[in-house]
């Protein structure tokens, strides 16, 4: 059949065109698969870290003896859903691991700590039998019996207690995952652009043969059908290796961390890659490739030519402005996403044209260097490259913007999380006040200890806050006494001068979500009902509180009335010159209980940070992969495009420009190209960061993250761009030399 022969003979003469498209599809599938797998892993890691520090309920004996295996058996026989939770404390750097029994968690259903039974392999959870072995090795261990909820009926001799390892990170994690999902969408968009650009270029280069076929009497429809078939076959073939490579890659990236943990714990605590290939990712990819490559034949021709006309540009500006305004004013998350999509569409539409315009404008200047005809020529060539390489240029711009935003976001999350955890776990030790014990006695005792470091008593409970029209709403109450140095390092979002003194003198502080929800600010007056007394207080500060959706007010302990009943009390203690073991014994005496629960905050923090760190690592990996792919696409495109320009560089040689000088021109051309793309990506990246932290987060969760920029990273990105440019130049140079040799074919 003539058509098949024509198609095959074309590729026989230009195997690289076919290879470029195939490579692009493989790489795009690899990236997308990698992103899917890594995002799933990030989700799992976060879930586990959250589980590691979440508040739960556990069963204690009323005789204050530690629970054991007998208690577990007795409770299970009484029909209470309990699961063992064995904490092993190893000295740093190993830190703490937790043994759980996945089988015993069956009755927990969805709420099972440590994830589903099948996902027992992430840090910090081990199977309880493995953990028990560590306990036998002499490491400090403690068994807890967790229950699914706080409303179970217990047999005689048992009571329920809150089981808190630290502040809840649930919302912070959810917010991060939302951002991660948004970024995955962006990655999909970029891969689509890249595949499309390579496919379009191939089509453009074959246009002449298609015209010829048409003149030979083959209907254009038929050629298109063949092209579509060709694409389907190629995609089908290339998606499989891409899928496999993506899973491999994700396994490598995820596994690196897992292996580090393996060697620390001598047990498998993290399974890197998924066991089965993520087939949905392949499905999404096939649909994407076909959609982006075949869309031209579905759209009317008129639209395509209109897109690059002056009117099209005007429309693009309108789309961009509309998107910008939309994102700034959007009342809901959905609108923010739509607005962001519009901004990207408008930017992508405009960028290549604007860059080309800029290059032409520079070339038309007649002062200084621009008066050098060679410089003028180079700038003109640059303008041509911008318009001919529009798609990969835009893809690279988007990829760079994504990397910038991810970098800023992840660093911000990391810092925020770290700071916030530090301020919530400010003391070295955390002491639970046993049920029924008098915290006041303990406070008096701590007060009397000479040489003790900073400490304070934390009281948690409920209060009601009066809002307009005398109506009142419940809020969480958080009280500190004394207001010690431990809180001095808190980052406050807004405050009066000396806010902590203000708090001691009867002021209140609010968490950010409450302030946003009720539109309250520092200096406003609040009426709060605590137990039976009503107090009126000025807001002295607003603090960041990322963990929970609930509104919370913070008062000094002295402001609490006698009748107030705390839900939960604890002490945060820095032992200072004293030994914590002694303090622990003394408190046991004061409270007349056999044992006092003391937690080491550093290890809780280390544990949570470690698992968060894993997530951040994965996220960075995703964005970096995107950048690499975009750079590869630019390399391919630059190389293919250069085949159409190579003659003009040879012409320079014919006109007597030495080979070195030509290479210098090439380098300057391609490095300018990539650096210009970086410059164009900067504002988009900064804007995207702002959208993520200041628009999406407040709308989704009621609090915002600090907006930090990292100019050092911009420089790093610029270096990456310069290197990409140099590699492009190198490829072009090889082509130049190769072609010249070919033309000579000398003996």
């Amino acid at each position, binding site marked *: 059949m003539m058509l098949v022969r024509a198609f095959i003979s074309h590729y026989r003469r230009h195997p690289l065109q076919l290879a470029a498209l195939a490579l692009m599809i493989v790489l795009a599938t690899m990236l997308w698969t990698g992103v899917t797998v890594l995002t799933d892993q990030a989700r799992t890691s976060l879930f586990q870290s959250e589980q590691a520090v979440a508040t739960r309920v556990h069963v204690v004996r009323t005789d204050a003896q530690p629970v054991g295996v007998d208690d577990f058996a007795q409770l299970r026989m009484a029909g209470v859903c309990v699961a063992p939770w064995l904490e092993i404390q190893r000295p740093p750097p190993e830190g703490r691991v937790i043994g759980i029994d996945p089988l015993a968690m069956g009755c927990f259903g969805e709420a099972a700590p440590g994830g589903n039974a099948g996902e027992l392999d992430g840090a910090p959870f081990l199977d309880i039998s493995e953990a028990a072995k560590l306990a036998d090795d002499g490491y400090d261990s403690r068994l807890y019996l967790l229950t699914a909820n706080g409303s179970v009926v217990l047999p005689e001799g048992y009571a329920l207690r809150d089981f808190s390892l630290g502040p809840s990170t649930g919302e912070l994690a959810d917010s991060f995952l939302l951002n991660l999902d948004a970024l995955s969408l962006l990655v999909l968009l970029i891969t689509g652009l890249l595949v499309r650009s390579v496919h379009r270029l191939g089509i453009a280069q074959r246009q002449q043969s298609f015209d010829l076929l048409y003149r030979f009497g083959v209907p254009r429809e038929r050629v298109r059908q063949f092209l579509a078939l060709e694409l389907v076959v190629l995609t089908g073939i290339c998606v499989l290796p891409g899928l496999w490579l993506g899973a491999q890659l994700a396994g490598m990236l995820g596994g690196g961390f897992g292996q580090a943990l393996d060697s620390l714990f001598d047990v498998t605590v993290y399974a890197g890659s998924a066991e089965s290939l993520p087939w949905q990712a392949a499905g999404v990819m096939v649909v994407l490739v076909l959609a982006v490559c075949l869309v031209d034949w579905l759209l009317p021709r008129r639209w395509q030519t209109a897109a690059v006309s002056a009117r099209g540009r005007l429309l693009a500006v309108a789309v961009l402005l509309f998107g910008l305004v939309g994102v700034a004013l959007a009342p809901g998350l959905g609108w923010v996403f739509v607005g962001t999509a519009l901004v990207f569409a408008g930017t992508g539409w405009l960028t290549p044209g604007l860059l080309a315009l800029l290059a032409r404008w520079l070339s038309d200047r007649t002062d200084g260097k621009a008066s050098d*005809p060679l410089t003028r020529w180079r700038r003109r060539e640059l303008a041509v490259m911008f318009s001919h390489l529009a798609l990969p240029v835009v893809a690279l711009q988007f990829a760079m913007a994504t990397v910038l935003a991810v970098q800023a976001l992840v660093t911000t999350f990391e810092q925020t999380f770290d700071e916030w955890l530090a301020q919530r776990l400010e003391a070295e030790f955390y002491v639970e006040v046993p049920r029924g014990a008098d915290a006041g006695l303990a406070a008096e005792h701590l007060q009397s200890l000479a040489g003790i470091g900073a400490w304070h008593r934390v009281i948690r409970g409920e209060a009601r806050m009066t809002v307009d029209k005398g109506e009142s709403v419940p809020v969480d109450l958080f009280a500190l006494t004394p207001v010690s140095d431990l809180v001095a390092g808190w980052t406050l979002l807004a405050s009066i001068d000396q806010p902590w003194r203000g708090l001691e003198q009867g002021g209140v502080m609010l968490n950010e979500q409450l302030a946003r929800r009720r539109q309250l600010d520092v200096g406003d007056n609040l009426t709060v009902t605590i137990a039976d007394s009503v107090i009126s207080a000025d807001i002295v500060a607003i603090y960041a509180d990322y963990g929970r959706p609930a509104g919370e007010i913070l008062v000094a302990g002295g402001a609490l009335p006698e009748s107030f009943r705390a839900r939960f009390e604890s002490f945060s203690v820095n032992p200072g010159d004293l030994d914590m073991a002694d303090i622990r014994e003394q408190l046991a005496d004061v409270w007349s209980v056999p044992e006092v629960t003391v937690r080491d905050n550093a290890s809780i923090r280390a544990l949570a940070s470690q698992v968060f760190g894993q997530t951040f690592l994965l996220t960075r990996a995703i964005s970096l992969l995107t950048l690499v792919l975009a750079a590869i696409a630019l390399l391919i495109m630059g190389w293919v495009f250069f085949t159409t320009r190579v003659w003009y560089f040879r012409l320079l040689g014919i006109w007597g420009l030495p080979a070195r000088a030509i290479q210098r021109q090439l380098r300057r051309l391609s490095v300018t190209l990539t650096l210009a793309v970086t410059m164009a990506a900067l504002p988009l990246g900064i804007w995207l960061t702002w959208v993520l932290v200041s628009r999406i987060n407040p709308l989704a969760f009621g609090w915002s993250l600090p907006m930090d920029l990292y100019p050092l990273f911009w420089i790093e990105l610029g270096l990456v761009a310069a290197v990409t440019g140099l590699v492009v130049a190198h490829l072009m140079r090889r082509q130049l030399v190769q072609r010249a040799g070919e033309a000579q074919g*000398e*003996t």
Partner: protein
Amino acid sequence: MSSAVLVARGLSKDFTSGGQRVPVLSGLSLCVRPGESLAVVGRSGSGKSTLLNLLCGLQAPKEGLITVAGESFRRPRKSSERSDDDARWAELRRRSIGVVFQEANLMPALSLVDNVRLRAHLAGHATGGERGWLERLGVGAEADRYPDQVSGGQAQRAALAMVFAMAPALILADEPTGSLDRHTADAVADCLFAMQGDSGCALVLATHDSELAARCDHLLDLSALDPAGTE
């Protein structure tokens, strides 16, 4: 003899194609003095373009000696000699040898006048006279257009303007009118010969066109000295 711009002695050139050695030129000699023109004719594939490439250093001969504007070249023995030769050839092409091909002589990203300016600049001439050259070649009105906005004949005139703007000692033209119709080809050739006469430079012109060849002072027929003897 000493006043010749271009002298070649015993030039030979082979190509390998499919592992086989194909001789193209062998033992060819020629000499062109200032103001003279030499037509190189011959069947397609007889080696006209190859000869011109040898004469401007774009390809290296297997054997032979070439002297252009006082610079002599032999087949280099060492790689250092080769790069030295490359540099000397580049300098010659830059200032003394104007090369014109059948088409694609212009940078598509630059207007005609900018093309001429770039060429003159590379040859070391002060810029400023470009429009004058374009006018003398009859394309003054098109000076600010881009190569894809002018006809083939106009583009070739602009290419000649570029060559004359560099004030060369030698012009190598490879079928400069090959893709033009008779009328346009004649007009462009008129320009070429008139300007060559004015400037007093030497011209080597490869062509299929016997009328054009007849306008040159000397004729070199490569078919007559086919090195393979057959084909």
